């Protein structure tokens, strides 16, 4: 299995008929078991790209192709959203089995699968709680378990930790890195946080400001499993600097325009 993001562009047409370009010729691949991070300044169309890949938005041109998946089938993806998007009327357990229910998996099997991912994200004892009874970090764990339980070919994450406080965010990064190593799935992770991108990714796709185009694709050659002390190491910081260089130029240009 390989996902090809094949020359995707996206225009929005406003009421006066004017066109805004959100994405310009985005082209890259996601290999099997690869963790790809897309990083870019705010408003660069990162989320637009993720929605197109998830099949929740249509591209103006270009297409998303899953190689090695039966023709005319809907490739199974799952999305973890920044705002969690948990069903408030469903308990933790019921949220996690949602995708399995839709697939027609029988109840006992649903429960077994759910238990596995509840254990993986560390939610034991919270199965019967409703989302409003959980903290932000807990909610995002539920969302990750829900997405993984659906057994997606590609897991898409749209700034999943942006709504969390800084400490929880760090802890969740370590957890996610471990979860990816355990599941060995293809991940596409969207963020504006460069440290996060380098810590998590096998490759980092750097997008420009609007209209988003690819400035560079940086291969992150750091050993796995990624440990917490990695963030103090020279080679890690080099990658961060490199990507910050791109983003900084973009931000400076934006400032010039505002003046």
């Amino acid at each position, binding site marked *: 299995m390989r996902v090809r993001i094949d020359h995707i562009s996206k225009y929005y047409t406003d009421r006066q008929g004017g066109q805004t370009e959100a994405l310009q010729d985005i082209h890259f691949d996601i290999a099997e078991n690869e963790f790809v991070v897309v990083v870019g300044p705010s408003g660069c169309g990162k989320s637009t790209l993720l929605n197109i890949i*998830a*099949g*929740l938005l249509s591209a103006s041109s270009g297409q998303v192709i899953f190689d090695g998946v039966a023709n005319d089938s809907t490739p*199974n*993806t*799952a*999305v973890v*959203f920044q*705002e969690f*998007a*948990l*069903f*408030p*009327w*469903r308990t933790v357990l019921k949220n996690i089995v*949602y*995708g399995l229910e*839709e*697939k027609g998996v029988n109840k006992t099997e649903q429960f077994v699968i759910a238990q596995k991912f509840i254990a993986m994200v560390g939610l034991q004892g919270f199965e019967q709680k*409703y*989302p*409003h009874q959980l903290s932000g970090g807990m909610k995002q764990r539920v969302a990750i378990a*829900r997405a993984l339980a*659906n057994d997606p070919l590609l897991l898409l994450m749209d700034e999943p930790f942006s709504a969390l406080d800084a400490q929880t965010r760090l802890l969740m990064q370590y957890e996610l890195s471990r979860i990816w190593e355990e599941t060995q799935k293809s991940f596409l992770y969207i963020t504006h946080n460069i440290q996060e991108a380098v810590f998590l990714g096998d490759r980092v796709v750097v997008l420009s400001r609007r209209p988003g185009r690819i400035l560079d694709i940086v291969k992150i050659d750091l050993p796995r499993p990624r440990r917490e002390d990695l963030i103090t190491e020279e080679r890690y910081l080099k990658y961060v600097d490199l990507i910050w260089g791109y983003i900084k130029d973009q931000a400076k240009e934006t400032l010039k325009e505002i003046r």
Partner: protein
Amino acid sequence: MKTPTELTKMEKAIVQDKTSFLQGKDHPWLSLTSFIIILCLWEMVSRLSWVPPLFLPAPSEILLEGWGMLKTGVIFNHVLASLSRILLGFSIACIAGVLIGILIGFFSIPEAIGNPLIAATFPIPKIAILPLLILWLGIGEPPKVAVIALGVFFPMVINVYTGVKNVDPLLIKAALSLGSNRTRVIKKVILPGILPMVFAGMKLGIGIALLLVVAAEMVAADAGIGFMILTAADLMQTKKLMVGLIILSLLGIFFNWLFQKMEKLFIPWKQ
């Protein structure tokens, strides 16, 4: 530098909490005592004949009258007649309101057709339609049930429509990304999502149903609370009339209590 004695002589201002009046205080006994005091005053006014009992009978007299009606059982006839009309009309309206509300809220073609129709018919006072309904459906139960159904339908359909529009689009996206199709989205996201608005519609609707059942029974009926109130007024039986009003108040309180309990039961995810 000022010396200590100078400092103590100085004027001073102490910071006060400016929001203190916003912090609502509890008055646990005030509600009950004020209610009792008003009842006692009323009793006194009638007992001392400051107002003729024909216009304002004493509360104790009204209770006695009500007790008498309970013992003979006449009251049950009227209450049952009204209740069955309310329940039938109310149920029809709730089901129709939820179905049509979802239809026009979720699909664009029904929305384009339904919205102007609702906007045009909603402002008509439903009592004004009653003569037309009698013309169409005859003088029996059907026009009474129909007028209640019409009256409850509008707050219901408008609430459900707003509810559907306010379902978080992100939840719909999440459901779609997890493999739901459109009908599954309605069943698993829209329906639970609009439940709070359905209950809000029911609470609004029951008030309207009480109003309309009385109005309909005053036009043409041989039983019901509205009929009872009207005949009592014709015969100057003020006590009996007042009993009717108390029953209406009790029914309203009962339904509100019932809906609140149901809401707690059906919406356990709300604090």
